[in-house]
């Protein structure tokens, strides 16, 4: 019997693996490593939230929930989104509880894209965006946010990239990896482009609660945008619940019903105990969230100041828990910088180009780690830069 050379589908074989994996492998076996490469909170999920999951198990809540998630949870999400984002969604028809925001993005893209449809993907961005567009049969069109604007995409750049096939704009603000957040005015300009060309905005708002200086505005709250926004969020970052894999997506009923079809066939429903935990988080988690936010803010300031002091130019990011210093001064590219820093000082940072070519010349330093670790990391990076 002759076996095929490969059983993999072409579009999967051609999919580029994430550039981050390499650094993960490189640290294997190394000791005394300080990692600023982690894209998740250093906090453990607040105890009351963990306890709610334990209690749900004790009470025997071990079966499926409704496909869209526990109605109680969807109602709590609706209230939360209304209270803090000032947008009203119908919990019965416009909200889906997903396996992390990642699944939300996946089903959103699969629900809206026909083969060949284009999605404007603003880079630098989370590693999954462009691949998920491809997997959904669409064509990602990269729009590179410019460093001159602290990586805040400009409406004219989007305007320039729009074609007849453009279906949606994918945006994450506050952004991973840059930490930058669009101002309300900048969002309104992006919204104008969307309206003019009848585009959807796929808005990844997972870092909405981790904003340190200004008020947060949701894309869905921009005048006239609720009907063309798919609002993706979740509990991973603000509730320190990454491992629970729980997110949600709010969108107009037609889109939600489309996404729900994919969700019910592919996933059935999100984990039941995680849903009970999230419900507790929404009801009683604001003060924990505020504590964490306060702590991130202090650390952000510390890292930004320290990096600038050692000559690595770093704007002050408005949100998330990443700083994105420019390392061009060292004469190295992002990857060499990160590789040498790991081997010479045992500090992990992620090269900016892992998040898109426009991140070249930068590295992502997460400050979701303790002050003690950050202090030591800054000392080591300083030593590294001084001895080049």
């Amino acid at each position: 019997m002759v076996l095929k050379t490969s059983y993999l589908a072409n579009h999967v074989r051609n999919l580029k693996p994430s550039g981050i994996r390499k650094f993960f492998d490189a640290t294997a076996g190394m000791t005394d490593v300080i990692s600023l490469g982690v894209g998740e909170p250093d906090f453990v999920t607040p105890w009351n939230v963990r306890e709610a999951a334990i209690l749900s198990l004790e009470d025997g809540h071990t079966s499926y929930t409704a496909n869209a998630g526990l109605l109680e949870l969807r109602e709590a999400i609706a209230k939360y989104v209304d209270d803090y984002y000032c947008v009203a969604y119908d919990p019965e028809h416009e909200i889906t509880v997903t396996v992390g925001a990642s699944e939300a993005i996946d089903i959103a893209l699969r629900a809206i894209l026909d083969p060949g449809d284009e999605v404007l993907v603003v880079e630098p961005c989370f590693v999954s965006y462009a691949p998920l567009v491809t997997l959904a049969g669409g064509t990602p069109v990269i729009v590179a946010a410019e460093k001159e604007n602290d990586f805040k995409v400009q409406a004219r750049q989007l305007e320039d990239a729009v074609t007849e096939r453009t279906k949606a704009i994918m945006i994450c603000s506050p952004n991973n990896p840059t930490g930058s957040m669009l101002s309300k005015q900048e969002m309104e300009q992006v919204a104008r482009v969307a309206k003019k060309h009848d585009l959807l905005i796929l808005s990844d708002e997972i870092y909405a609660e981790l904003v340190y200086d200004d008020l947060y505005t949701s894309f869905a709250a921009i005048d006239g945008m609720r009907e063309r926004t798919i609002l993706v969020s979740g509990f991973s970052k603000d509730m320190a619940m990454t491992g629970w894999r729980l997110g949600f997506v709010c969108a107009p009923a037609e889109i939600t019903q489309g996404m729900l079809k994919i969700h019910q066939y592919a996933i059935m429903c999100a984990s039941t105990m995680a849903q009970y935990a999230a419900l507790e988080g929404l009801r009683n988690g604001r003060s924990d969230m505020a504590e964490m936010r306060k702590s991130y803010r202090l650390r952000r300031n510390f890292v930004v100041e320290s990096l600038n002091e050692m000559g690595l130019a770093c704007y002050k990011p408005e949100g998330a828990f990443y700083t994105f210093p420019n390392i061009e001064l060292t004469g190295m590219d992002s990857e060499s910088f990160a590789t040498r820093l790991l081997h010479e000082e045992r500090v992990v940072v992620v090269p900016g180009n892992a998040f898109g070519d426009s991140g070249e010349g930068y590295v992502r330093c997460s400050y979701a780690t303790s002050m003690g670790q950050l202090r030591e990391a800054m000392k080591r990076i300083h030593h590294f830069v001084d001895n080049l």
Partner: protein
Amino acid sequence: MKLTATEIEIAGILEKDARLTNDELAKMTDLSVDQINQIVKKLEDQKVIVRYVSLVDWTKIDGHQGVTAMIDVKVTPKRDVGFNEVAKRIYRHKEVKSVYLMSGTYDLSVQVEGQSVNDVAHFVSQKLSTIEGVISTTTHFVLKKFKHDGTIYDSDDRDKRIVVSP
């Protein structure tokens, strides 16, 4: 005393970690080192920051001896000075680590440290219960400290995250 939001923030940060340098505090709060110096000095001068302490887990040290007792003390308050006079007579003893006025079934909660149970017993019978105004004492010995001042002793605080994630 009225403090600004920033001064309160600095006090809160130092309460959690007194070893932060003024330079680090300046970076964390976006203030100049001069401003931090002034704020910290004000907090110290006004006794808002009373003292800088370390939390030491003495049980980790081989051969360490020592016991802690929490004593509920009932007191007859005195005219004009209430409980203050008795409290003062109690807290002046160096064995006494803390004294709180309580609501509920007793009046003063007194924390005492000694080398041995005998030490504490001696203090209670000879010194504490003989103070004028003290009606009764109930002594509870601490067997194990799990959490103190918001800090869990022996907590598993290893970072369980994978080293690099997107």
